[in-house]
């Protein structure tokens, strides 16, 4: 043991050399802002585009329109049908991923330097000129409906959809952005065109690029790709009120292991206490083996394979969420332990030792995120959407280190509301006191 202690003391002194991620902000000739990290070692570029609003832009009676529209972008564009388009993309060995969530639609592309222009031209067609051919609509609609049918029998999906509905009601956050079997079945081609107009506009666009490209080339690329987009899209939905209260809701489902989702009001990303809450979460249930919940629920009692919590500061509301899964005859005990830990944390806060360890972990783990061109592009666009400064990466660990014990414990008392912590349990749980069965 001695040699290990010695090594530990030494390493604590030398914090990891900072991963140098040098971001440049560029403005294209036509006025589009993009963040760029030049990295010429490998001859390709990762490009990340995001359009704020996402699935929350659906009109109430058109739920699932943005999701289905996003799924159809690569299913034929310009004069190419779905298969011709796919072959063309394969012929330049580029890859493009399209995704939609509650807050944005994202396009994640990577293309080789040797045929960048051809790849970008194909991407441009998908963004500007998707065909929404009737056959393609029906094919992708069937895939979406298939996924929705699966969700209706998936305890994890049932739990999270039930929680969202209880937390947000009629707000877009209150329902699955993929839509329902009924709403997706009723979507028309015109609905998809409207969703396309709602999403793709310059007033909600964020751009990040990492790789074998310089500022001038990127400026030209983003102009080619994006300058012709309309100036504005659909108005953003209003903020959502978190309406969920304390208690336990059971959704009966015949399966051996109960799945629980739990949560309460969270904290906005721009709240001055956000870092204190972030550290607090790391100590309570932040996913590592050292968290209190992992120690109490898994390591000491063997009640679960995993238990975790996370801050979910979304654009229009903030939640503090968690999840656990235990056999039907053990979930009640897991819920009790989590509720107890929640209350204990609210009342007593964390120790100096826990705070120090969490800081060391968080500051040390931060550079591990920057492990490739695509992850860095993704992080840069996230920073822009959150309104963070371009030098944030260099200052972030200092902000973590500046959080004091008093701050964390004040935030623990203010943020954690054991009486408002709601559990949705899907399964056939035994012995859950006072649960309401839905």
């Amino acid at each position, binding site marked *: *043991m001695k*040699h*290990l202690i010695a090594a*530990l003391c030494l*390493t604590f002194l030398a*914090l*990891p*050399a*900072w991963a140098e991620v040098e971001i440049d902000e560029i403005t294209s000739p036509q006025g589009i802002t993009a963040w760029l990290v030049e*990295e010429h*070692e*490998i*001859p*390709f570029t*990762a490009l990340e585009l995001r359009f704020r609003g996402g699935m929350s832009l659906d009109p109430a009676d058109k739920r699932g329109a943005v999701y289905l529209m996003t799924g159809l972008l690569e299913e034929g564009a310009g004069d190419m049908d779905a*298969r011709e388009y*796919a*072959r063309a993309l*394969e*012929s330049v*060995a580029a*890859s493009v991923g399209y995704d939609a969530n509650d807050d944005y639609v994202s396009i994640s592309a*990577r293309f*080789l330097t040797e045929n960048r222009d051809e790849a970008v031209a194909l991407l441009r067609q998908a963004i500007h000129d998707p065909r929404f051919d009737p056959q393609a609509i029906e*094919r992708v609609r*069937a*895939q979406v409906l*298939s996924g929705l*049918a*699966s969700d*209706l*029998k998936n*305890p994890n999906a049932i739990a999270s959809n039930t929680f969202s509905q209880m937390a947000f009601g009629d707000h877009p956050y209150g329902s699955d952005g993929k839509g329902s079997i009924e709403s997706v079945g009723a979507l028309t081609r015109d609905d998809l065109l409207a969703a396309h107009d709602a999403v793709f506009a310059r007033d909600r666009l964020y751009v990040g690029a990492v790789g074998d490209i310089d500022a001038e080339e990127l400026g030209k690329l983003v102009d080619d790709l994006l300058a012709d987009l309309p100036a504005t899209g659909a108005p953003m939905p209003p903020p959502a009120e978190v309406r969920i209260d304390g208690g336990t809701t059971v959704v009966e*489902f*015949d*399966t*051996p*292991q109960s799945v629980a989702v739990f949560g309460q009001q969270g904290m906005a990303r721009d709240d001055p206490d956000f870092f204190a809450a972030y550290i607090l979460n790391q100590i309570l249930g932040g996913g590592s*083996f*050292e968290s209190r919940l992992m120690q109490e629920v898994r390591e*000491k*009692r*063997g*009640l*679960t*394979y*995993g238990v*975790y919590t996370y801050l979910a500061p979304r654009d229009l509301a903030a939640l503090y969420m968690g999840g656990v*899964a235990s056999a039907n005859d053990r979930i009640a005990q897991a819920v009790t332990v989590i509720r107890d830990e929640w209350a204990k944390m609210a009342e007593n806060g964390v120790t100096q030792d826990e705070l120090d*360890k969490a800081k*060391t*972990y*968080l500051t*040390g*783990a931060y*550079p*591990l995120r*920057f*492990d490739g*061109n695509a992850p860095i592009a993704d992080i840069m666009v996230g920073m822009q959407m959150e309104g963070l400064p371009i030098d944030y990466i260099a200052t972030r660990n200092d902000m973590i280190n500046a959080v004091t014990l008093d701050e964390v414990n004040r935030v623990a008392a203010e943020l954690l509301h054991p009486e408002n912590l709601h559990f949705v349990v899907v399964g056939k749980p035994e012995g859950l006191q006072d649960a309401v069965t839905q």
Partner: protein
Amino acid sequence: MLRAFASFAATIALTQMVHAADTGSEAVSSFELDNGMQVVVIEDHRAPVVQQMVWYRAGSADEPPGSSGVAHFLEHLLFKATDTMAAGEFSATVAANGGQDNAFTSYDYTAYFQRVAADRLNLMMQMEADRMVNLRLTEDVIAPERNVILEERNQRTGNNPRALFNEQMSAVQYYNSRYGSPVIGWRHEMEALELDDALGFYRTYYAPNNAILVVAGDVDPAAVRDMAQQTYGAIPANADLPPRERAQEPPQRAARRLTFSDARVAQPSVSRSYLAPERDSGAQDKAAALTLLAEILGGGTTSVLAEKLQFDETVAVYTGAFYNGTTLDDTSFDLVVIPAEGVSLEQAETALDKALADFIETGVDPEQLDRIKLQMRAAQIYARDNVNGLANRYGSALAVGLSIDDVQDWPDIVQAVTGEDIIAAARAVLRPEASVTGWLMREPEVSQ
């Protein structure tokens, strides 16, 4: 079978169709310690970060009969006490150094890894070498950890009818090979796992001459060699390491069928598997042809099955083909069809068989093959952006008996495959009399 919240290696194997390795472009060096431990160093100096992985040539297919799940159970227990470290101290120390750690188990290997700032590598090596031989398991950790793996089985398999079905498919595909038992174990055998089972597996297989060290990231190979010699190099080889001779699958001479019903099934589907050869050192041609065959048949919008079952006709909402040749023993070639609304499983199966027969008759579209090969060449460039992926590629290959040369030759072998080779592989493997067909259903249906 990761220790926490990540995908199950055996499942990943089904989705990783492309194994295009880099040639020359990545900086890879390798050497062997005196005690027989193989070391691979992959340099990537773009960020001051390193990943250490130790791969043991021991997985669930090496378990004694009746003790399914013990390889994975031991993987969990390796995070408990050693002579010098308390239970949980390993991960706590990694975390205290700002690092992340985890482990995973598959049929042919068990691997442990840490990602950490490059200047902490020596400490990681000290700790990993420590638990290679100094584990001190006690009875009190067995019961709670056994409950954890039972909950893990609930989460991955018990709560997922498709996973239960896939487990049955494997059990029917492999009559004699241990690939027929799930990596996580059969529940009744997991419930009976004791301290002695775990220790027996540990003492038999955890030794430097049965391990591969892969270090990837911002490191200097000479420095890695020094550190490895001081840590792992101090551990004597296990002279009693048993030869890796496992029960082999006999030739399949009769088609096999199964049906599985579960009220929780939302999307019925047809699965098909065939016994298939794996990559062998110095003889990877057949595996290369099968790798391309899986891409041609099931690699997305432009694939043969998508074309025939999703575009020309609306038989399916999803089709897929999977082949993972990085295994020690005979592996399987798998196909899946999720029928479209109103299409029965029988109709979907008939359409699948017709599509396969037509494909073998017609041959490979040379333009499609060219596009796939181009994408695989590009994948070699993209792969350099993911040094952890490269570490996995080398580690898994070496753990199943391939060499570094095999890994580096692989892309050229794939590029040299012809359309005729692929059809020959299809004829050899996709034989109706040597097939397993499974129907995943909502409720028992009257078949035929």
